[in-house]
């Protein structure tokens, strides 16, 4: 919703035309075919005029008329079909290349970029914005070229036949142009408001579908209907205003055109009677008038297409022009696993999600980060894995800044298990061995460590079972373990866990953690968690609250020094017995 005003602030159609430069051969062919096709079209009335004038005379050959006319019809057919094929090819090429460019830019960016611009906006850029540019190429170019050509061509021919009558007839052109401009300039803001109303309506509908269970539980259908009816009413009101404006436009244009016909009949009739014009020319005049009007309408409608395409291309241009992220270094030595977080500040939206957070993690040790909802724990892990760039402060691995490392080498060795489960519409094997560097042995080890082997055995196709995009057929715990296996399959040196335990029961959790310790010796572990029980014998615990690290120490120390930690501890005390049993 970021200021629709700036987006429409006079979109620069010059840029749009510059986009076509690399395709100039195609565009030239398109323009050539269009002009050729329309030239032939202009010959038609001439043939008719000569036929009518020559009809009575003796030396007139009907066969030659038929031959000429057939050649004309065939030529027009071939040229117009050729033109539409060329414009399809050109448009699809432009669209394909534009998408490829967009994807190349996006994949050169970091996660923070996609997060900031949002996935849905980028999707719009890649789909409807590219489509708008595509329809500019596939419709507007040929239409505008042929329209201009027809207007100019028909005008010249009219002038050649009789310049006085032609001037009279051509007076309709500015009148039509003006009424078109008048209506379109008033309708355009309405169109935009109509689109906004439609977006609003769609949002109400979407929420009523996605929140259907809640609505039924609260019996709030009437409330939703009220929201809906307001949005739908608004949409109807704007729609009716647009209808009101357009329903006047076309009849007026046709009427003005008809006035030109009237001028031809009365004034032209006078000329024929006075002998300065032939009846054939009189007929041709009528035909050319018909040719003249349609292009004016087309140009009017196409100005809309050009405006939309310009706005779309400007949005695409913003993405293409976004500067690439700061390049990282080339360090790719194997990590030992020492981590240092120093004075880390991370901004999320308007406020600091992390404020001056510092702690260090020795290689091979286990660190827990504990704290309430919205304390900034996830942001901390994102900063530690280089997914987001902190506002200030440092993350160091083995004493070197995270940005000194080669990005790929770092991601290969620092694995993050995300809080939310992300599965791809691939086989289970490809989901776990998602990185290209995973061999069968690492895959097997990861599956066993994540306690997935029994689950895999129950699947009819085993590891080759295709997982749906949202992983709907899997339980929350299964998805979480697949996420863990995916990270472990990298054979990482550092493992970052984000609330891994939320959807896995204590027993499986402790088994998995024991597996990790056994199968990945020397692994440095940083685990964001809610539960104190499993982390009591960790090497250190960081208590994170409202973006600040309030206390750092072992469980034994914190239980005596940190009131916040004690509070968390007490909140879980009563159930520790059971957790231990498990």
């Amino acid at each position: 919703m970021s200021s629709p005003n700036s987006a429409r602030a006079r979109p620069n159609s010059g840029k749009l035309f510059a986009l076509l430069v690399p395709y100039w051969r195609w565009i030239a062919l398109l323009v050539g075919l269009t002009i050729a096709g329309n030239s032939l079209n202009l010959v038609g009335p001439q043939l008719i005029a000569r036929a009518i004038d020559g009809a009575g005379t003796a030396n007139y050959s009907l066969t030659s008329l038929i031959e000429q006319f057939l050649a004309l019809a065939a030529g027009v057919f071939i040229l117009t079909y050729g033109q539409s094929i060329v414009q399809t090819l050109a448009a699809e090429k432009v669209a394909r290349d534009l998408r490829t460019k967009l994807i190349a830019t996006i994949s050169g960016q970091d996660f923070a970029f996609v997060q900031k611009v949002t996935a849905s906006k980028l999707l719009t850029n890649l789909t409807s914005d590219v489509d708008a540019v595509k329809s500019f190429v596939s419709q507007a170019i040929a239409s505008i070229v042929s329209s201009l050509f027809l207007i100019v061509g028909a005008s010249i021919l009219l002038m050649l036949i009789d310049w006085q009558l032609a001037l009279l007839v051509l007076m309709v052109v500015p009148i039509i142009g003006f009424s078109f401009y008048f209506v379109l300039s008033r309708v355009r803001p309405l169109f935009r408001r109509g689109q906004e109303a439609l977006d609003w309506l769609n949002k109400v509908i979407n929420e009523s579908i996605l929140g259907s269970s809640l609505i039924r539980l609260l019996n709030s259908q009437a409330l939703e209907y009220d929201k809906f009816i307001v949005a739908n009413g608004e949409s109807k009101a704007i729609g009716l205003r647009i209808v009101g404006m357009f329903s006047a436009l076309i009849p007026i244009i046709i009427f003005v055109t008809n006035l030109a016909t009237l001028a031809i009949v009365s004034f032209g009739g006078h000329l024929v009677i006075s002998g300065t014009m032939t009846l054939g020319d009189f007929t041709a005049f009528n035909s050319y008038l018909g040719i003249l009007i349609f292009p004016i309408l087309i140009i009017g409608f196409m100005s809309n297409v050009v405006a939309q395409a310009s706005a779309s291309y400007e949005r695409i241009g913003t993405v293409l022009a976004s500067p690439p992220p700061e390049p990282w270094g080339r360090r790719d030595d194997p990590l030992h696993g020492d981590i240092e977080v120093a004075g880390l500040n991370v901004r999320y939206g308007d406020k600091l999600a992390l404020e001056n957070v510092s702690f260090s993690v020795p290689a091979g040790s286990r660190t827990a980060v504990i704290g309430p909802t919205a304390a900034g724990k996830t942001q901390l892990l994102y900063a530690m894995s280089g997914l987001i760039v902190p506002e200030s402060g440092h993350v160091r691995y083995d004493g070197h800044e995270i940005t000194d490392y080669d990005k790929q080498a770092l991601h290969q060795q620092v694995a993050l298990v995300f809080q939310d489960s992300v599965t791809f519409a691939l086989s289970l094997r490809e989901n776990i061995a998602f990185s290209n560097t995973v061999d069968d042995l690492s895959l097997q080890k990861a599956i066993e460590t994540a306690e997935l082997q029994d689950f895999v055995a129950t699947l009819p196709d085993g590891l080759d079972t295709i997982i749906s995009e949202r992983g709907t057929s899997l339980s929350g715990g299964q998805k979480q373990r697949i996420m863990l296996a995916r990270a472990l399959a990298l054979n990482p040196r550092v493992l970052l866990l984000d609330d891994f335990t939320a959807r896995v029961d204590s027993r499986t959790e402790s088994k998995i953690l024991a597996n990790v310790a056994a199968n990945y010796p020397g692994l440095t572990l940083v685990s964001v968690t809610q539960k104190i029980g499993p982390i009591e014998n960790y090497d250190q615990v960081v208590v994170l609250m409202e973006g600040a690290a309030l206390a750092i120490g072992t469980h034994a120390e914190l239980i005596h020094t940190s009131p916040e930690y004690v509070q968390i501890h007490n909140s879980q005390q009563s159930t520790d017995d059971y957790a231990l049993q498990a």
Partner: protein
Amino acid sequence: MHYRLNTQDTNQSKEPLRVGLTRLLPVMAGEGRNVALAVFAIIISSATTLTAPLIIAYIVDRFIATNDYQGVFVWSGLLLGVFLIGLVSSYVQSRTMGGVGRRILFNLRNAIFTKLQALPVAFFNQNKSGDLISRINNDTDKINQFFAQALMQFLSNAALMLGAGVLLVSLNVRLGLAALVPAIIVLIATRMLSGWVKRASFKSLQTLGGLSGEVQESLANFKVIVAFNRLDYFRNKFAGANQANYSASVKAGVASNIFLPLYGLAANLGTLIVLAYGIILIGNGELTTGLLIGYILYVTNFYTPMRQLASIWASLQLALAGLDRISEVLALNSDMTIVPSDEVVGDAVMAFDDVSFSYSGGQDVLSDICFSLERGKTYALIGPTGGGKTTTASLMARLYDPSAGTVRLNGRDIRAFTAEERAETIGFILQEPFLFSGTVGDNIVYGNPAYADLAGGQLVDRLDEAGLSGLLKRFDQGLETPVSASGDAMSLGQKQLIAFMRAALRNPQLLILDEATANIDTVTEKLLEEILAALPAQTTTVIIAHRLNTINNADEIFFVNGGTVTPAGSMESAVDMLLNGQMQS
């Protein structure tokens, strides 16, 4: 009950146009007078369009040819009158039909939305939300475009074409029929080509869907792609989809662009036939030059609308396909009706009598379940994932009806209660919290008639009374914290807090928490426990949880697994069952 909509048969309706158009009739109900007016206006304006060439021909033959300028002048006045009538009638036509279209769209959307609100949760579970949203947004939009633009053009072009055709034939039968020959050839060609065009267009739409699917999946999961060094996956997947869409679209373009040149060819051939044959007829003295000029205009009047009809045809087909998909939704009916029953059995707030349940067509998720919940107590449902906990809870709130047995609320069959009574009595915090766009405050009072009109300050007071205001500290701007449409800026824990406040504030007799606090930290969770404890003594609470501390305060624990609900007795034996149960699964 099957609510599953057809998503496989993506072919457009094969029925003839006549049948398709009659199915548009019901949505046009109440517009009879307006439609009649519009049709009348269409006939008038088409008539004026068609009369003009006749008058011109008459002027040429009768006056210009005879040098009678006086006649030219008088008849030009008549022509002006005809044009004026045309102006008025075509304005009336556009205006009326445009209004009809907008109102039909308005009614159609209302009908679908009302229907959606009347359908039960099962409907939404059996269909993909993406498909439903697309039906309502995209399909109504296609119908909108059809009504707003195409229908008017369709009707007036059809009228013009028909009129021109009739005039062509009636003025001179042989010449008229000859002029129509190319049209017939072209219609046959259209019939033969349309299969090819349809297949190519469908393939192109399909690849477009595939393309946006790829992009959506990759962009939504961009962090994983970055963290696992798989930008190549993103690029390759996309490049494949992009190329597929390119070739399919080019093929579709080549196919669907054949029609306009073809119709242009037909128009030229028609003109040629009239011209050549007409000249021969003039030579034989059977036709006048004026009439030939008029005839050529009629050929244009016949073929131009025909070309327009061809381009509207696609839009009509799309609208009909959209209407099909919408009608499918409109035809569904909820089978969860109110079943009157005054029989009262027992005084438990909630009881299951031999309840069995299966999701449509599947195996029993629950079989012959019996238990009852007493007023004022706290119950916990534990058990492995997929064991039936959420299903049990959903039956308690009548999100579904059991396939056998009776669910009793306060002793009466739950099906005897109105939706309003159920909403008042039962609070349910769903596993997946849902937020509406707006503010945190909007979401807390959402659907709560008692608080709908409260000003911000009053709401804070009420939250204070309920002991809930402490939870607001988790939100930057308290009640005013904005909630965006996608809810991206909120953590899962924050969403769960809002859902908790929403439910607790309603003071239900029976409060069900379905893993409602899974992502909330344990300190805040303690606070929630205190809030629950402070609810009126009569409140019955049902808690579903993974974490054992959340169910610590339960008076009774049920173990739910493999379609059975077993009282677990003590906490210890519950833990024991949970462990053993997991060994089995």
